């Protein structure tokens, strides 16, 4: 498993050779991609107008982030909830642990939260004597397998059902070893039965939030399984763990973003459950309500060239339509957020030295920006990180040398024309059969494809001759 974005080249090579992963990745197009296209076709309004509304709604939030967060805090506090702030991952882990200790909690059920992955909360809680139990089916499976998620909304995307069955047999040793786990429904039922007992027994529940609303002080989660709600409603203490950028002005703005989110993510008009969580309850529901607002590199992006990446509503459409993610999957990225959004977000959060290399994992085909429901210019942001990587002298030596060589010729037009003229003619001779199968330098490039042989003259020469 890739542990760092810097290992992307080796990890992606290994991923390309993984046949089982290839089968899983085939479902990006046939399931996520196809369902999104159908949902947009079905949509009763103007999808482009909705995207523009989503973009403007998120931009308004990002340009008023301080006042909206303060308003959110006042609204939560007014209804008896508590708001906590954490500058970085370490502080966020400690804040969560502190709340759990104050609540006298030991067993903790968890709804799906990418921020929890980002701050590596589970190992920290375990080291401090707590028992965190992931309850989203995909998260539960990968928790048992001790793997990170490979997709933002489908954490166990890379696995097939036989692997899940094997994982359940290894983990659920109290159940009959001879039971039939051939069908997906049997796996779902087994998780339902075992996790229900965990929900009933848990001292506290931790969920993420898809949106926060400033005016009402609401945290909203969007789920299909219902695990997030059982995580919130059955234990005595509920903690919402989320990023500071998730806030928007009010519930109406959240309703707009919701229409974009579920259609872009799974191709649903709406998810099975949208839960607006506003505070503690004096009856059915949690007695204590806490919201932990995590910065962890987000505020640094405000006002910079990558600011628009904070518009992201984590739908995964960019992953589902990316030729690179589609070939190597999520684990190769070595960071919590994979795919185009990861390539645009991780360098900002983890630093250029640690993650800017991921911005090279793109063909700049632009599909990610086309499908983004909030119009994040993902290729432009990746280009920005590539430039920063180059300027910091962090780009690979062969890449810098090649670019330098090209720049030397490109700055000298006469020399450039002579050199390309010679190259075109030499390549024509090498590629007598019409294509070139190998050249000494870019060996990796030729390993999987041929180059059509030039026809003997350069573009400049042909243009002049017209």
């Amino acid at each position: 498993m890739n542990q760092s974005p810097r290992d992307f080249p080796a990890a992606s090579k290994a991923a390309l050779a993984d046949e089982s992963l290839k089968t899983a990745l085939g479902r990006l197009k046939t399931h996520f991609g196809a369902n999104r296209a159908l949902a947009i076709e079905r949509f009763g309004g103007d999808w482009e107008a909705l995207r523009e509304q989503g973009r403007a709604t998120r931009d308004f939030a990002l340009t008023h982030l301080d006042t909206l967060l303060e308003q959110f805090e006042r609204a939560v506090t007014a209804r008896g909830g508590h708001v906590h702030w954490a500058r970085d991952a370490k502080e966020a882990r400690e804040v969560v642990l502190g709340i759990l200790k104050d609540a006298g909690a030991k067993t903790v059920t968890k709804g799906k939260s990418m921020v929890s992955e980002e701050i590596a909360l589970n190992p920290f809680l375990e080291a401090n004597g707590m028992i965190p139990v992931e309850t989203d089916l995909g998260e539960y499976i990968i928790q048992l397998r001790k793997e990170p998620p490979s997709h933002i909304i489908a954490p166990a995307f890379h696995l097939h059902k036989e692997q899940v069955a094997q994982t359940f047999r290894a983990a659920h040793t109290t159940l009959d070893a001879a039971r039939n786990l051939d069908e997906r429904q049997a796996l779902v039922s087994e998780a339902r039965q075992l996790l229900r007992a965990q929900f009933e027994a848990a001292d506290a529940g931790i969920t993420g939030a898809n949106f926060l609303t400033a005016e009402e002080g609401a945290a909203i989660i969007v789920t299909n399984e219902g695990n997030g709600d059982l995580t919130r409603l059955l234990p005595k203490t509920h903690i919402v763990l989320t990023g500071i950028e998730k806030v928007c002005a009010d519930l109406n703005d959240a309703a707009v973003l919701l229409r974009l989110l579920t259609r872009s993510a799974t191709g649903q008009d709406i998810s099975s459950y949208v839960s607006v969580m506003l505070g503690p309850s004096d009856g059915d529901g949690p007695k204590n309500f806490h919201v932990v607002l995590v910065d962890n590199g987000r505020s640094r992006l405000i006002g910079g060239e990558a600011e628009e990446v904070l518009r992201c509503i984590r739908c995964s459409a960019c992953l589902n339509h990316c030729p690179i993610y589609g070939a190597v999957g999520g684990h190769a990225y070595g960071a919590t957020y994979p795919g185009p959004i990861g390539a645009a977000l991780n360098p900002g959060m983890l630093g250029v030295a640690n993650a800017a290399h991921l911005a090279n994992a793109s063909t700049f085909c632009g599909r990610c920006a086309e499908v983004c429901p909030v119009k994040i210019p993902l290729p432009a942001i990746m280009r920005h990180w590539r430039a920063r990587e180059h300027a910091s002298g962090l780009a690979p030596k062969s890449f810098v040398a090649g670019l330098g060589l090209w720049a030397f010729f490109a700055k000298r037009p006469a020399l450039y024309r002579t050199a390309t003229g010679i190259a075109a003619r030499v390549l024509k001779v090498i590629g007598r059969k019409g294509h070139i199968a190998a050249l000494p330098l870019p060996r990796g490039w030729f390993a999987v494809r041929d180059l059509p042989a030039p026809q003997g003259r350069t573009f400049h020469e042909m243009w002049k001759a017209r």
Partner: protein
Amino acid sequence: MMSAREDILNAIRAQRVRSTERPKSYIPPAPAADPVAAFAEHATAVNADVRILNDAGEIPAAVADLLRGKNIPAEIHIALDAPTMDVGPLALKRTPPGPDDAALTTAPFGIAETGTLAYPASAQNPASWHFRPGFEIVVLKASDIVANMETVIARVKAKGLPHTLNFVTGPSRTGDIEQTLELGAHGPKALAILIVRE
């Protein structure tokens, strides 16, 4: 030392370089068809069993029929503080339902745009009851079906916000194994909606 709160807010204020206007809201046009028909069509598309009744007197027979159809014992859970409903010969339970039990709830709102039920939590309508049972049977008055989520938000806010506002569309589902839809992940395995016309 500054608090985390001050540090984060100050960083945001120091770095911000622009301001943008609050956009005017774009809401898709309400379905042209009758809202009850639109609601039923959307809810059915996401695996809800929708039945339209002429009056509340038909509820007990409809509930009994739904339970028989699923081979569930003839007993139904209704929240302790909810107004009791006539359930005919069915055994009435007032305890929270387990993961294989059937529960009867009332939805204050339906949303035509997506076939969604909306529940502000209250003692009469406890939030966890939409997630605990194996089979949730919901009574919804046809006149409580509104165009969109924004209408529900406005009406709920006018009455005062609850601790939780749940929007429920179809039964619980997951696509987490091989991206293939399976119903009944953690919440109800099945959802039936009795729309009462009167």
